[in-house]
Every structure is written in structure tokens, then in C-alpha cells.
């Protein structure tokens, strides 16, 4: 079997006297789309933050493939309001190659005509598309999505899902999606893991590319796993 690009072994995270994650064992494989689902406060975002290196585990071992390039897309866009949209992607790098790459990414997310404008002039969906373009500039092998579509309306959300899936397929990115939306997880992921009270309690296969009925069935299974104490099987 392929070696995982990220491996968490017996990982624990404690804030003060509150244990947020308990004995997490998780492998992330190259080219896979993994979704972590669960209710708010369950610890799924903390797993992403540990993988991204934004926080350190209290106990256990977390290893990443050497030289692994990761980029995070946060729930809020975290764009720099004082930079133009193009500069937000390139971080004002003046290297012609970087600028050219940033322009082609803006084209890929459908924001070519907004390159000289500022984030304040964009809608919520456009801001997240811009944030996606920014995340892709470094050509990451692993894309970490921390509920980036949570605040979008249903239609924009579906369009963003399609865009992420298109990029995932084209660029063969490994992707970790954190979401509380079971339909989103079922529709996008290869593998879905349910996080509850700081533990990984169930795992199932996603229904990406399958019929709407299959997606709905998977979503129902995942929802049941979130709400019940029993594990689910794929």
C-alpha cells in the first residue's frame, strides 16, 4: 500500500483541562480526498490545524512526508483587504513567473476581470474562489479545507464544490475537507471519517461521481453515524 503523506499516531490535544482530541490514529494518502465530518466542537478543525502545523499535539506523534507542501483554506477567506485581488494571490511577488501563474489561477477560478479590484468589491463566493486561487499558487500536494464553504449560499456552495473537485482531479491533489455538511462530504470525498467528542468514531466510503441517490444514501449513513454511537460500515 502507498505510504501516507500525513500520519497521526495516538495524537492527543488538550487545552487547559479540556481534552479536545483523544488517541487519534489517522493516515492521509496521496491523491485521496478525505472528509472529516461531525458536529461543531467535535475536534475536526483541530485535527486540520495540527496537520497544517498551526498547532502542536499535546501527546502522540504526527509525521508528514518530507518536503510536503500544504496550503490551508480557512472558513473565513482571510484575504488581505489592502492588496488587489491579483496581489492577494501572489502576495505582491514581482517575479514575472509568479505573476503569470497568479493570473492563470485567477482565470481558473473565473476572476480574471477582477484582478485589479480589491476583495471588498467581491461577493462571498468570489472571495472564497480568490482564497482558493491563493492556496493553489504554491502548487501544494495537500490542500486543507477548513469548512471554507460554510458561509456560502446553496448554489454558490455547489459551484465551489464543483470547482474544488475539478482542481482536485486536474492537479491530483490530496485534499482534507473539514465540514459539518454530510451531503458535501458524500458528494466530494473518497473516504469519510466521522469525528465525535474528539475521537474518530466511524469511517465510510464517499460517493463522488455517483448518482444523486448514492450520494443521498451515503450522506444518510454518515448522518446516522454522527447522531448515533454506533460505527458505520461502507
Amino acid at each position, binding site marked *: 500500500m502507498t505510504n501516507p503523506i500525513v500520519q497521526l499516531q495516538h495524537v492527543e490535544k488538550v487545552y487547559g483541562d479540556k481534552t479536545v482530541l483523544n488517541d487519534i490514529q489517522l493516515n492521509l494518502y496521496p491523491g485521496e480526498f478525505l472528509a472529516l465530518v461531525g458536529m461543531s466542537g467535535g475536534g475536526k478543525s483541530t485535527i486540520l490545524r495540527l496537520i497544517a502545523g*498551526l498547532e502542536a499535539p499535546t501527546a502522540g506523534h504526527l509525521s508528514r512526508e518530507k518536503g510536503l507542501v500544504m496550503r490551508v483554506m*480557512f472558513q473565513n477567506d482571510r484575504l488581505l483587504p*489592502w492588496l488587489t485581488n491579483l496581489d492577494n494571490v501572489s*502576495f505582491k511577488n514581482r517575479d514575472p513567473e509568479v505573476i503569470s501563474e497568479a493570473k492563470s489561477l485567477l482565470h481558473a477560478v473565473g476572476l480574471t476581470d477582477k484582478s485589479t*479590484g480589491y476583495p471588498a*468589491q467581491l461577493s462571498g463566493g468570489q472571495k472564497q474562489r480568490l482564497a482558493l486561487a491563493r492556496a493553489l499558487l*504554491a502548487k501544494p500536494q495537500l490542500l486543507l479545507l477548513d469548512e471554507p464553504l460554510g458561509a456560502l449560499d446553496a448554489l454558490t456552495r455547489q459551484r465551489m464544490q464543483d470547482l474544488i473537485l475539478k482542481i482536485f482531479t486536474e492537479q491530483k491533489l490530496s485534499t482534507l475537507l473539514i465540514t459539518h455538511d454530510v451531503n458535501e462530504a458524500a458528494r466530494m470525498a473518497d473516504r469519510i471519517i466521522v469525528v465525535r467528542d474528539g475521537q474518530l468514531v466511524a469511517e465510510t466510503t464517499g460517493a463522488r461521481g455517483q448518482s444523486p441517490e448514492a450520494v443521498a444514501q451515503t450522506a444518510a449513513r454518515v448522518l446516522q453515524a454522527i447522531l448515533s454511537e454506533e460505527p458505520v460500515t461502507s
Partner: protein
Amino acid sequence: MQEVTTLTQQPKRRARRSVNWLKVLPWIVPLAILIGWQAAVSFNWITSSLIPAPTTVIQDGITLWQNGELPKNIAISLYRATAGFAIGGSVGFVLGLINGLVKPIRALLDSPIQMLRNIPHLSLIPLMIILMGIGEPAKIALVAIGVMFPMYINTYQGITGADPELLEMGRAYGLSRRALFTRVIFPGALANILMGVRYALGVMWTTLIVAETISATSGLGYMATNAQEFMRMDTVLLCILIYALLGKLSDVIAKNLERLFLSWRQGGVDA
């Protein structure tokens, strides 16, 4: 089945050409005061020897300009103001920047600066006169001290108030410390820093005028005090009018700096 009705937009009626009232409004109150003042003197509601008419004040201004008294005093005041602002503003800005960025220096310097800040700087006038006499350095130093604190406080707050989420994003995206400062921290602090500039410009004039009123042989403050000794109300009022104009000029400079550096704030959602 429900029918779908296509909604078409009515063509917008062409807006009538009208006066831009927003541009006119700011002038109404000053103009009304001038007209009221002129009328009050012309109709003898107030004694012209006590409060001369605006026309008399303007006439006095022209005479003083022609004999070189006014340009000389304005020039010396502007020199003191800009020199004091440049020195105090730079020191305040650099201190705010360093204290905002480097924690050990902050621990060392912030507390004494806060103590000094709470001393009313105009109370330092006697000290300055004793230490530096009534020459230029004393007045420039006083303006510099007055200007330094608002610049320090606002720069410091701007730097330390950098959005932690943007900082986290910058670090997660591999920005160097330098890039983190130039792309995230400093631009985020700029609004605060410019607010410091605006406030410091106000303090600059107040300090200078008080300093020139108490201990000077030239400058606008001196001109007003001198006129008061000779009961020249027209010159006193002329000086007050010039203060108002210089205050307005400072405001225009501050606004233009904000427009230049904070242009990204303009504009809303267009899609």
C-alpha cells in the same frame, strides 16, 4: 403548474442635473458666520472698535502681507511646526514601531513612555525656557514632544492590533518575517498610524501657538499677543482666522494621505 414570469427592468429615468449639495454644505456655516458678523458690525449691533468687521480684518491682512509682516510670521511658524512635527512624529513612529514589534523593548520602554505621556506637555514650557531659553530649539522641542505621543500611541496600537487570523494565514502560507511585516502588519496598522498623523497635526498647531504666545519674538502666536498689547483687534482676529485656515489645511493633508494610502477601503460589492 406555476407560470414563470420574466421580469424586465424599467429603463431608469435620467437623473436631473442638480447642484451637488454635499459639496456646498460644508461652506454654509462658515459663510453664514461671516455674513452675520459683517451684518452685525454694519448695522451697529456690535461696536466695531470691539469687534471689527470681516472686511476690516481682511484689509488688515492685506496691509500686513504687503509690508512683509504676515508672510514672515507665517513662514517662521510653519518652519517651527514642520520641524517639530518631523522630529516628534519620526521619534513617535519609530518608538511605536519598535515597541509594537519587539516584546523585550516593549517591556523596557512602554511603561516609562506611558508615564511621560500623561504629563501635559504644555506644562513643560517653563522647564523648556529655563533649559533652552526662548530661541527656536525650545519651541521646536515642545512641538516635537506634543506630536510624539499621539504618533507613538497610534503606531503602537496599529502594530500590536494586527489581525491574528491574518498573521496565522501569513505564517501558514510561508511568508518570511519581512513579508509578514510589509504585507500584513504594516498595511493593517496604516489606518491607525494615519489617525495618529491627523491627531498630531492638531496638537502641533495648539502647542506652537501656545509656545509662541508665551515666549517668542516672531511667529503667528507672537503676532496675536503683540496685537493684543496694542489693542489691535483686527490683527488678533486675523491671526485666529489664519489658525482656522491652517487647521483646515492640516485636515486636508490628513484626508489626502488617507485617500492615498487607504484607497482599498473605497468601493463595495459589485457582484
